[in-house]
């Protein structure tokens, strides 16, 4: 383990290593888009379009890599380790599986899930002639179809697609920047992916009228083989460290309805001496005060 005993000699190297080590709050997942040995034009175009959607959190490999992900995963794991990418999209084409896309993710640089999808119809970004949204826009993801909840493979596919297209996690978002929608429908054995640009038009009230305009790549996919992680490995990957749980503030509790309650601890009060409102007539006269204080110098009463 060279990285253990060789310390980095420059600050830049140290920053590089710190970026790659396991952390409490992780970085945004990077995706690597790889072409197989026999990738055809369709598959290459798909990879280029997905790269345009996922920029800057994606790496597009130019050269063809002759590997078979379902048989041998070592080459993928090597790439993932070198480029620090935990998502991958591998495109290939042969007679038995035409226009093949293998979408997958890694856990600890080992393959976690892999799902093979066949592209039946593909409309590229440049084929639809209208304005596109800027790169790096965080998309909104919509999943339609009850297959995504019922079928186990479809559920994993949904989780994979969310992971893939999510982009960085942000606590706040600018409402005008919500421009991109990715819509996935699961119907009669196929998965339809469509992308829309959101146009906010003027409407009478404060909330603008929303119009969806088709833009971007649209794919018709068919699920082929899958290589899903075993349940315990999946559970292990889902495990969040304890440090991520929000720190419980003492004396603050929340209601079902969203009301926040607080508790204040007071000392024992003498309720007979409690005064609720300021009433000028009840103000202590200097004579009374001196009698109480036991001979302390009486203050001069302020003249109104």
């Amino acid at each position, binding site marked *: 383990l060279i990285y253990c*005993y060789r310390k980095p000699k420059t600050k830049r190297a140290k920053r590089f290593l710190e970026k790659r080590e*396991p952390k409490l709050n*992780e970085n945004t997942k990077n995706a690597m888009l790889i072409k197989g040995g026999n990738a055809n034009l369709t598959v290459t175009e798909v990879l280029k379009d997905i790269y345009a959607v996922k920029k800057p959190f994606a790496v597009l490999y130019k050269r063809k890599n002759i590997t078979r992900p379902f048989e041998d995963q070592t080459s993928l794991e090597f790439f993932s380790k070198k480029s620090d990418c935990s998502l991958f999209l591998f495109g290939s084409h042969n007679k038995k599986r035409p226009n093949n896309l293998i979408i997958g993710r*890694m856990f600890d640089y080992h393959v976690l899930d892999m799902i093979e999808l066949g592209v039946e119809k593909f409309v590229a970004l440049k084929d639809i002639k209208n304005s596109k949204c800027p790169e790096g826009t965080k998309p909104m993801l919509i999943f339609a179809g009850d297959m995504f909840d019922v079928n186990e493979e479809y559920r994993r596919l949904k989780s994979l697609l969310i992971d893939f297209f*999510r982009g960085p*996690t942000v606590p*706040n978002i600018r409402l005008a920047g919500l421009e991109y929608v990715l819509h996935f429908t699961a119907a009669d054995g196929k998965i339809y992916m469509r992308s829309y640009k959101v146009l906010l038009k003027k409407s009478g009230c404060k909330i603008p009228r929303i119009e969806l305009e088709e833009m971007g790549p649209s794919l018709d996919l068919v699920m082929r083989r899958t290589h899903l992680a075993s349940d315990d490995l999946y559970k292990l990957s889902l*495990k969040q460290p304890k440090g991520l749980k929000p720190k419980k503030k003492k004396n603050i509790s929340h209601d079902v309805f969203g009301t926040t309650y607080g508790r204040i601890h007071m000392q024992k009060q003498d309720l007979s001496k409690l005064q609720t409102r300021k009433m000028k007539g009840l103000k202590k006269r200097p004579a009374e005060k001196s009698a109480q204080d036991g001979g302390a110098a009486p203050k001069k009463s302020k003249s109104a």
Partner: protein
Amino acid sequence: LVAQLPEPTFRLPREKPPPKPRPPTRWEQFARLKGIRRKKKTSLVWDEQAKEWRRRWGYRRAGGDPSRAWLAEVPAGADPEEDQFARLRREKRERVARNELNRLRNLARAHRAGSAVPAAPLHPTGHQDRDELRRVARVARVSTASLGRFQPRLPKESAEPPSRSGGKKRRFEPLLGNLAAERSRQLELLRDMGSKKPVLDITRAVNKQLRQEEAEAAAANKGKKQSKRGKRGRRQQRPGRSSKKSGARRPKPQQPKTAGGGSGGGRRKK
């Protein structure tokens, strides 16, 4: 116009496993024991000679560059012929080497604590540290017939730690425990004793043995180098094989021992 997003509810798998806290180093353990706390040091120190604030160590440190020291006092009880500059240089080199060695040792300890090496090598290699040797000595002491109870301890070894089984070699169930289980066990025993069919299926056992030997012969013919492993494999496979031979799998401790012993003895005679 900015909206605040709610907490994410959909759980997605992580990229890498959560970071494990690294185990404390030898100094950190000692400091915790003694209650020594870190003193915050200022980054700049006043240099009286240069009359300015210089850094504590590094480029242009307070107190001048130690490699350019032009004066080296001969200490009280030292050899007058010795080269003091060479001594200072040598001592610096030794300090650096010791620091590096300790750092690597701490790293190795942290790494080993993470991976938990299961089987320590029982032969002395010369590269074992104190903990490994202690472990090995314990294994050696316990590998006697009385599990190390009457073994004299080594001169610097600690007193006897509490043994896990309480000193007993065999563990028995309580006298009046599960009456139903005891009854079923006794009835099963009677049934097996009275049955006409033998517990051990001789033909199956012999076939299995023949197949195993054929496989080993094939493996031995494949690679002459692997012959050693075949012998070792055969030796290791013995207890596994005998447990498979006993027909009915019984969860109680007494049965497999006698059945295994019986079948093993029977096979050996054949």
